[in-house]
């Protein structure tokens, strides 16, 4: 086995902690995410003077516990990112598989759709649709799901095309296997690595997109919260109550960073071309 770099270990540990905290939720903090304490507004974190010991990471402008806020934000951001990634990956991959299988005009039409999506900056599509249809959680998740589907479609079309032209796929067809067996049992496992690498790229991008939208006021709406929303809300307080934005900012940064590191590692390990080169 190759030695594992400490950076990778760090990244995996960060992601594990993030997922754990998001799942467990705020059982460790006595405060709810929307529980306010108007007498304890803008309290600094525990290591600073003037802190309130029951709020280890401080409080926000209406006296809500930052620990509870960040955990709730993390839950929301991760959920949105996961839901978005899954929707995008599944939809995009299906489109890719379909166009690779049918070729011809089906492929042309689907790839045109891909071109269309790629011809607009995604945030523009998001802003426009939110403008036309109004903000709602469902639309928001769908939009996050639409993010990056064209990348999956292009990618999966490419890898599927090359996979089904591989002799092993031909041999399996020659054995008399149907399409279901061919694609699900043989092609999918073999293209999965490329798709997984793409997931590690899309996932942090969705978190950042959600953050950007929150900054523009179009992200997750109160009373729900997300890391991006806390960060956006706290930005006016950067010079007076830095902790409001620095905590969620750090979490976003660490999660994105870790995901990218894991993604790079996965790509190095899973990309057959890279692997062939290094051995």
């Amino acid at each position: 086995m190759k030695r594992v770099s400490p950076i990778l270990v760090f990244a995996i540990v960060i992601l594990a902690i993030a997922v754990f905290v998001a799942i467990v939720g705020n059982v460790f903090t006595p405060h709810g995410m929307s529980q306010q304490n108007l007498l304890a507004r803008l309290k600094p974190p525990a290591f600073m003077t003037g802190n309130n010991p029951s709020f280890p990471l401080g409080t926000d402008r209406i006296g809500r516990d930052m620990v509870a806020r960040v955990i709730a934000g993390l839950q929301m951001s991760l959920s949105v990112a996961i839901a978005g990634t899954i929707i995008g990956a599944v939809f995009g991959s299906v489109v890719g598989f379909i166009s690779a299988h049918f070729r011809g005009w089906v492929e042309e039409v689907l790839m045109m759709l891909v071109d269309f999506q790629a011809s607009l900056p995604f945030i523009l599509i998001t802003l426009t649709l939110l403008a036309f249809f109004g903000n709602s959680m469902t639309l928001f998740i769908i939009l996050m799901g639409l993010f990056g589907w064209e990348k999956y479609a292009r990618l999966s079309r490419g890898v599927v095309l090359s996979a089904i032209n591989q002799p092993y796929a031909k041999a399996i067809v020659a054995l008399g296997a149907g399409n279901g067996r061919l694609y699900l049992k043989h092609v999918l496992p073999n293209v999965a690595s490329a798709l997984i690498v793409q997931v590690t790229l899309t996932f942090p991008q969705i978190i950042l997109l959600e953050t950007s939208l929150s900054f523009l006021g179009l992200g997750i709406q109160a009373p729900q919260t997300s890391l991006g929303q806390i960060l956006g809300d706290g930005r006016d307080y950067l010079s007076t109550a830095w902790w409001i934005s620095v905590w969620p900012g750090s979490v976003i940064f660490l999660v994105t960073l870790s995901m990218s590191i894991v993604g790079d590692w996965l790509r190095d390990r899973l990309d057959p071309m890279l692997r062939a080169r290094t051995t």
Partner: protein
Amino acid sequence: MTRFWVLKILRTVLTLWFVVTFVFVVLRTSGDPVVALVGADATPEEVEQFRQLWRLDDPLWIQYFRYVMQMATGQFGISYRDGREVIDIIAERVPWTLILGLFSYIGAILIGVPAGIIAAIKRGSTFDNLIMATAVFGFALPNFFLGILMILLFSLSLQWLPSSGTGTVWHLIMPAITLATFTAGTLARFTRSAMLEVLDKLYIRAAAAKGVGYWKRIIFHALPNASIPLVTIIGLNLGELIGGAIVVETVFAWPGVGRLLVTAVSSRDLAVVQGLVLVMAVTMVLANLVVDLLYGLLDPRIRVQN
């Protein structure tokens, strides 16, 4: 050769037609287009003007056809927010975004590409790790956050740079850096892998066998080949750049199309939104055409197809 370009252009036109249709469909499915485009408390004159522009009593397909023709000739209508021609409003914003975009784009290329090259040729070294770590940092930080941090540091504390707006070249620095960070990071990573791929090619080895020196191999043999996929990614990144501009222009009060979009969206100035969508789509699609053109120039396998 000609066929290749005819096809390309046809595809481009089709994509734009898709965009136009998309706007039409969305407009139609999201409620009464009159209300949507001129607002609930529009004056009867506005409504009338709008009805005339779209001639809403005609059958849908005629409306659609006319609408497509209008979009094709750049008649985006009148802004409901300030009553001016949408095309004029956009036109006065475009140069600013171009300046910011070009400046940060060139900056990102000048930083990202050499960094990627160095990382590739020093593969596995501390230097490589350092560059790649910086690159990841570059896009792990939300750009509005980075922008505000920079304002607080360089404008408020150090007072080296102007905090926002336009005027001098100094005004350009912080927004450009904020905008370029993400792109530079992406480019560095991509350049690295493209270079690594090319450096392992047989023709690089063959060049070495001919006695071509190390740096000459890198610059004259590897780089031109690596630049072929790089051009694609640079083209694709234009979208990210425009997307980034939406946020960065808001942070730094930069009067470009990105901020226009944000104001237009929040005031539901849909004629402007619609115009912007089209202008941005045209930009992206043209950029993709340029990329294809460059691709052809760089890669004789595409250029010379008998």
